[in-house]
């Protein structure tokens, strides 16, 4: 077992990891920027180390400063959370070279799955279906046009080195390709330092369904069932749930089998997520997230398992604490991400100081909050304040509990997406489980 873990993150996920450390008797060390000295994750930890100014590249994204904090505090391991350095293979490698245990997969796996084109190829070789598109990164407009002629329009241009929906451009028809190609290449170059693009068929109104996988160093790989994450804005998730409502059992069986096969093929260790899009009775691999996922609590709620504790145990060299047959999905769970954004203004950021905070509670209600009254929600970081999760014996019960919990959730001082969530939960389409990834942009939940 690990004796001490440095949590290289902030906000709700830092608190979540610290809580798991506590449960296992592991000393937890927080890091914080100058802007976050008064934040709850700092108070929660056994020790906290200041790592620099507010801008993330000078603190939470600064590998040297994180490693220095680990040395200074005597940490034996580093948990990266999500975002920041969590999928940076150079960071994972630097941890290993510094004699620290990286709580996540081996750096070579992060590197391999971080290259979206290589990942796609690797998954296809492992028998996992991928979205029809180019075999690899394309360098020229002519090559893209040739692929477009085969897979058909509309299509998507994606940055080979990208993720999180950044740099993706939809192309309606062949005539729009030249301008879109130039724009996508420029964005990819600016965001990721590489203008390499690949082409994929654009799916109309698909669902986003993902599978939580978990591997150990002994070679066991299991799945913890699926999550439905179709309600998104700017390709980022707002509402997640497990199970995926109305998913055909035969399709689900194929989906989880493919996810495990894919993870096994790359020698996956620790927690990861295989993301798929589902359309018309078929599923296609999208990407693998080689880290703890924001929405992991819905899986914990329906399986009764603690994914973060298991991450720490497996990172310490222990075998997975569960066998596949022990991992049962019971009831239903929903998560609403509470972002400091104004849904009435196209989900624009809403930084500021939280002047009042009233958190819902009750049976089947779980809160993962990173904030407290008086904290300054900074322009420098992701706008996620908290995650509200409800569980029920049935999906209807989880929805009813979420509806009630959202009514009593009060945040003042910054705008939040809570009013949006209330409309989602009240909508006939959501209640019927008829969801797809383009609903928010189509205005399905507008006031």
């Amino acid at each position, binding site marked *: 077992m690990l004796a001490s873990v440095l949590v290289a993150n902030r906000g709700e996920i830092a608190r979540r990891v610290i809580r798991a450390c506590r449960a296992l008797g592991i000393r937890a060390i927080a890091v914080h920027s100058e802007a976050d000295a008064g934040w709850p994750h700092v108070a929660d930890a056994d020790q906290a180390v200041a790592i620099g100014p507010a801008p993330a590249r000078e603190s939470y994204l600064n590998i040297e400063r994180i490693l220095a904090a680990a040395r200074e505090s005597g940490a034996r391991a580093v948990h990266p959370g999500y975002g920041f350095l969590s999928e940076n293979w150079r960071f994972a490698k630097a941890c290993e070279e510094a004699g620290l245990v990286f709580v996540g997969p081996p750096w070579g796996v992060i590197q391999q799955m971080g290259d979206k084109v290589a990942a796609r190829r690797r998954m296809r070789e492992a028998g996992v279906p991928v979205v029809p598109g180019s075999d690899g990164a394309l360098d020229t407009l002519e090559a893209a046009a040739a692929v477009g002629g085969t897979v058909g329009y509309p299509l998507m241009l994606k940055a080979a080195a990208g993720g999180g929906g950044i740099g993706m451009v939809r192309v309606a028809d062949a005539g729009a390709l030249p301008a879109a190609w130039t724009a996508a290449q420029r964005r990819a170059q600016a965001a990721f330092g590489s203008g390499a693009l690949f082409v994929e068929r654009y799916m109309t109104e698909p669902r986003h369904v993902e599978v939580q996988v978990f591997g150990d160093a002994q070679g066991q790989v299991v799945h913890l069932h699926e999550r439905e994450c179709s309600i998104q804005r*700017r390709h980022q998730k707002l509402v997640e749930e497990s199970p995926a409502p109305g998913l055909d059992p035969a399709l689900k069986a194929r989906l989880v089998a493919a996810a495990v096969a894919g993870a096994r093929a790359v020698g996956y260790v620790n927690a990861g997520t295989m993301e798929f899009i589902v359309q018309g009775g078929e599923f296609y691999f999208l990407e693998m997230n080689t880290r703890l996922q924001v929405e992991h609590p819905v899986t914990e709620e329906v399986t009764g398992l603690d994914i973060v504790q298991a991450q720490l145990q497996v990172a310490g060299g222990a075998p997975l604490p569960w066998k596949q047959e022990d991992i049962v999905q019971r009831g239903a769970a929903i998560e609403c991400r509470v972002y*400091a954004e104004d849904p009435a203004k196209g989900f*624009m*950021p809403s*930084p500021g100081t939280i002047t009042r905070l009233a958190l819902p509670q009750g049976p089947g209600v779980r809160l993962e909050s990173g904030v407290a009254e008086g904290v300054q929600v900074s*322009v420098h970081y992701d*706008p996620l304040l908290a995650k509200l999760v409800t569980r029920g014996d049935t999906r209807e019960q989880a929805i009813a509990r979420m509806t009630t919990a959202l009514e009593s959730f009060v945040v003042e001082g910054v705008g939040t997406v809570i009013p949006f969530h209330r409309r989602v939960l009240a909508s006939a389409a959501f209640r019927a489980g008829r969801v797809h990834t383009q609903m928010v942009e189509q205005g399905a939940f507008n006031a």
Partner: protein
Amino acid sequence: MPEDVKAHITGVVFQITSKAGDTVAEGDPVIVLESMKMEIPVEAPRAGVVREIKVAEGQTVQEGDTVAVID
């Protein structure tokens, strides 16, 4: 008549996309702000010529601050 270009959100100046003397059309980005991991352009409220850019890259601006002046 000169007109102030004001930031509509609080953020950090990510990029200055125009300079004094540039001709801009209504809706052209004058600067780009970064806030909460999003890049948000601040657009020219009308067509004109940029007289002055009043901010520098990396500077924090509050909602309502003047970031540029257009003639």
